[in-house]
C-alpha cells in the first residue's frame, strides 16, 4: 500500500510537468491552430532563465593570491560572490532561493520570447499546411537549442533546491500511516502543487476574465468573433506568450529535479505530443488529464514487480497507451470533433 501511494505521488509529480507542457501546447494549437514543435524548446529556455538568474546573482570577483598555492602548485584564485559582498546575509538568501526567485525573470522573458516567436515567424505560417508548420517550428527548436548549446555549453547546469525544502517530507504521517512509511522529496511535492496552481490559474484566466472569454469564443469560432469587431489575432498572440510562460515556468521549477541542458526540450517534446494526442487535440482539460494519467502509468510501469514480468515496459508504456486510446477513442480522451480533421 505504501509502495503504491509512493508511486502514485511520483506519477503526479511527473504528470505535473507533462500536463504543464501539454497545456501550453494545446493553448497554442487551440487558439492559433499551429502545431508548435518549438514548445519543448520553450520549456528548456525557461530552465535556462533559472540558470541565467543564478549565474547573475553568483557572479564572483576573482583575485589571484600569489602567497597561497593551489593543490598542484599554481597561485590560488580566491573567488568571492558579489551578492554576498554587497548584501551580506540577504545575498546568501538570494543565492539559496535562486530557483523560485528566477520566476521573476522568467515570466517577462518568456512572454517576450513567445510574442516575438509568434509575430516574427509563426504568424507567417497560419495559412500553410500543418506539415509546413511542423517543419518550421521544428527547425526553430533546433536553432534555439543550438544557441543555448553555444552559450551555455553541452553539459547540464545543476540548480540547488532551497535549503529549507531540501530532503524528504513525511507524507505518511499526514495521512495516518506509520512515521517514515511514506516519505517523498519536498521539492517534488512543491512541483506538483505548483503545476496544479499554474493549471488552475490558466483555467481561471480563461474562465473568469473578459479576455479569457473572448479567447474561448475565438477558439470556438474565430471568424464570428472577428466579425464582431474584436481583434482576435492580438489576443491569440498574447495567448501564445502565455503558453510560452507556462512552458517556461514548468522549466524553471524543474531545474532542481533535473539539471537542464540544451537538449532537454526535445526530450520532453515527443512525450508532450503524445500527451496532447491522448488528451484530445485542442482540449485543455484533456491535456491536463492525459498529462497526469500518463505520468502515473509511467511511474507504475517502472516498478520492479512490473518490470520483472515485462522488461522494458517503462520505456514503451506511454506509446502503448496512446495506441490503445487512439484505437478506442480516435479523437483522444476529450478531443473535439473537427480538430485536425479537415
Amino acid at each position, binding site marked *: 500500500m*505504501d*509502495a503504491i501511494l*509512493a*508511486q502514485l*505521488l*511520483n*506519477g503526479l*509529480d*511527473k504528470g505535473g510537468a507533462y500536463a504543464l507542457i501539454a497545456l501550453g501546447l494545446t493553448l497554442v494549437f487551440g487558439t492559433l491552430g499551429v502545431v508548435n514543435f518549438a514548445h519543448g524548446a520553450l520549456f528548456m529556455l525557461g530552465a535556462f532563465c533559472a540558470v541565467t538568474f543564478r549565474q547573475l546573482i553568483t557572479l564572483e570577483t576573482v583575485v589571484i593570491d600569489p602567497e597561497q598555492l*593551489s*593543490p*598542484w*602548485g*599554481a597561485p590560488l*584564485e580566491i573567488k568571492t560572490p558579489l551578492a554576498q559582498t554587497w548584501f551580506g546575509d540577504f545575498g546568501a538568501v538570494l543565492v539559496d532561493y535562486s530557483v523560485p526567485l528566477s520566476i521573476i525573470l522568467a515570466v517577462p522573458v518568456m512572454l517576450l520570447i513567445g510574442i516575438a516567436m509568434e509575430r516574427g515567424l509563426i504568424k507567417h505560417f497560419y495559412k500553410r499546411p500543418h506539415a509546413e508548420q511542423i517543419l518550421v517550428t521544428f527547425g526553430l527548436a533546433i536553432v534555439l537549442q543550438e544557441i543555448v548549446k553555444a552559450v551555455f555549453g*553541452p*553539459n*547540464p547546469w*545543476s540548480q540547488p*533546491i532551497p535549503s529549507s525544502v*531540501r*530532503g*524528504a517530507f513525511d507524507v505518511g504521517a499526514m495521512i495516518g500511516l506509520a512515521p*517514515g*512509511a511514506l*516519505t*517523498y*522529496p519536498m*521539492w*517534488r511535492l512543491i512541483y506538483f502543487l505548483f503545476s496544479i496552481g499554474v493549471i488552475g490559474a490558466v483555467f481561471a484566466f480563461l474562465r473568469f476574465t473578459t479576455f479569457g472569454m473572448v479567447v474561448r469564443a475565438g477558439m470556438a469560432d474565430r471568424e464570428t468573433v472577428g466579425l464582431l469587431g474584436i481583434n482576435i489575432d492580438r489576443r491569440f498572440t498574447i495567448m501564445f506568450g502565455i503558453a510560452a510562460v507556462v512552458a517556461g515556468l514548468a522549466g524553471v521549477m524543474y531545474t532542481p*529535479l*533535473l*539539471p537542464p541542458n540544451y*537538449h*532537454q526540450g526535445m*526530450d520532453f517534446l515527443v512525450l508532450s505530443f503524445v500527451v496532447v494526442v491522448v488528451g484530445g487535440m485542442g482540449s485543455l482539460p484533456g491535456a491536463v488529464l492525459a498529462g497526469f494519467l500518463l505520468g502515473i502509468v*509511467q*511511474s507504475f510501469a*517502472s*516498478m*520492479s*514487480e512490473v*518490470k*520483472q514480468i515485462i*522488461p*522494458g515496459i*517503462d*520505456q514503451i508504456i506511454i506509446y502503448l497507451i496512446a495506441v490503445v486510446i487512439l484505437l478506442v477513442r480516435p479523437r483522444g480522451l476529450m478531443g473535439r470533433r473537427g480538430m485536425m480533421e479537415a
Partner: protein
Amino acid sequence: MTKLHGFSRRGLLKGGLAGIVATGVSPLIFSRGAYAQEFCNNPTGDTVTLGFVMPLTGAYADEGADQQRAYELAVEHLNGGGDGGMIPTFSSKTLKGNGILGKKVAYVTGDDQTKPDAGRDTARRMIERDGAVMITGCSSSGVAIAEQALCQEKGIIYMAGLTHSNDTTGKDKKRYGFRHFFNAYQSGIALGPILGEAYGKERVAYHLTADYTWGWTQEESMIAATEALGWKTLPPVRTPVNAGDFSQYLTPVLNSGADVLVLNHYGFDGVNSITQAMQFGMRDKQANGKNFEIVLPLVSDLMAKGAGEAIKGVYGTANWDWQLGDEASKAFTKSFGAKFGQPPSQIAQTSYAQVLLYADAVERAGTFYPPEVIKALEGFEFDGLGNGPTTYRAEDHQCFKEVYAVKGKDSPANPFDLLEVVGVASKESVTYDPSIFGGELGPDTAVVC
C-alpha cells in the same frame, strides 16, 4: 681470372652483412614490417595523425571534456611542449619530445555523443578521411566495443579510453584493441571487502543498472562480490542510459526492504541518480534496523563534483586519483592543473597514459606497422604512469595494476578534494584467469585501406 688480394665472394658477403648490422639497417630488413609496410594510414609525411573520439555531448559529456584536455596535453608533451608531464616518470625512456618516430603528432577530434553508432561513424570518418593511424577515446563501454570492432576490421590500433565493462577485454576483446582502464570485475574485488567492513555482512541490496554492457557486467560483478560477503540481492532494475529523471525507479526502493542501493550508473546518470536519491532522503533513512546506504561502484572526481553533498561518505572504485602521492601522479597533476586550472580526473589519466603507451610502443617497434605495435604492447611491463607497476596482458589486452577503493570525502580541504582513497587492491589480487570472460582476440593481420 684475376683475384683481388684480400677479397673473396665469401668475405664480401660477410663484410656486407656486418656492415648492415653495424649501420642499424638490420631491424628493417629482418622485421616483418620492412617488407610489409602497406597498411592502413601508413604515415609517410612529416606528421602522424591520431584520432580522438570523445563524448562531447550526452550522458558522459563531462568525462569527454576532460578526456579532450588530456589528449591535448599528451600531444603537446609528445611534441616537446610543456613540462613533459609523465614522460620523464614513464619507465620506458623512448619518448624524447620529438613526436613519434620523429614525426610531429597531429590529431583530429570528434564527438561520439555517448552513442555506439555515432562513435563508430566518427571513428570511421577519422580512419577513412583524416588518415588516423590510431584511434583512442570513449567513455562508454558500448562505444568502446563498437569502435574496437571497427578498428579490428580496418587494421587500426584502438587504445580504449574509459571503458569498465568486463566485455571490452572479455567476450568482445579484439587483437587491435587495448584497455588501460580497470574493469567491473576488478571493482568487485577491490570494493567487496571495504563494503563488508563498513556495512556488515547482513545487507539487502537493490541495484539500479544502466541498461547496456557496462551496467550489466558491473551489476553481475557487484552482486558476486557482495553475495560472497553474505548480502542478499533483490531483483535488479535496468534503467535507460541518459534517463535524466530516475525518480520513478527510486520511489520503489523506499519500501522494497532493501537497506543498500547500488547505483550502476556513470557520468551525468550517476550524478542525477545519486542526487535524486538524496532528495528522497535515502541517506537519512533506516531500513532493517540499519542506516540506509548508497554505493556507486564506479565513481570519478567529475561525478563527485556534480553530486556535491550527495557523494559524501559514498563508497566506490576508481582507476586513479589525482591525490595519489607517487611522482608520476604529482607530475601529471601539476602539468594538467597549470594548463587547465583544475586537477585531472581518472579519465584524463587513462586517456593520457594510452596515448603515451601507443607512442612508446611505436618507438619500441621502430615502425607504425600495426602488427609490430601490437607485439610491442602485448605483455609490456611498465611503471611511472600513475598506477604503479603495470602489465598489458597479452592474452586479453587488459592492463593489470592496482585498483583503488574510494569514498566521498566528508570534509574536503579544497573544492577539488572530493574523493579519498580508502583501500588499494594489489595488482595480484585483481588478476584473474583470462578465460573466465571468453572471447577471441582474432588475427593481427595488417589491412590496406
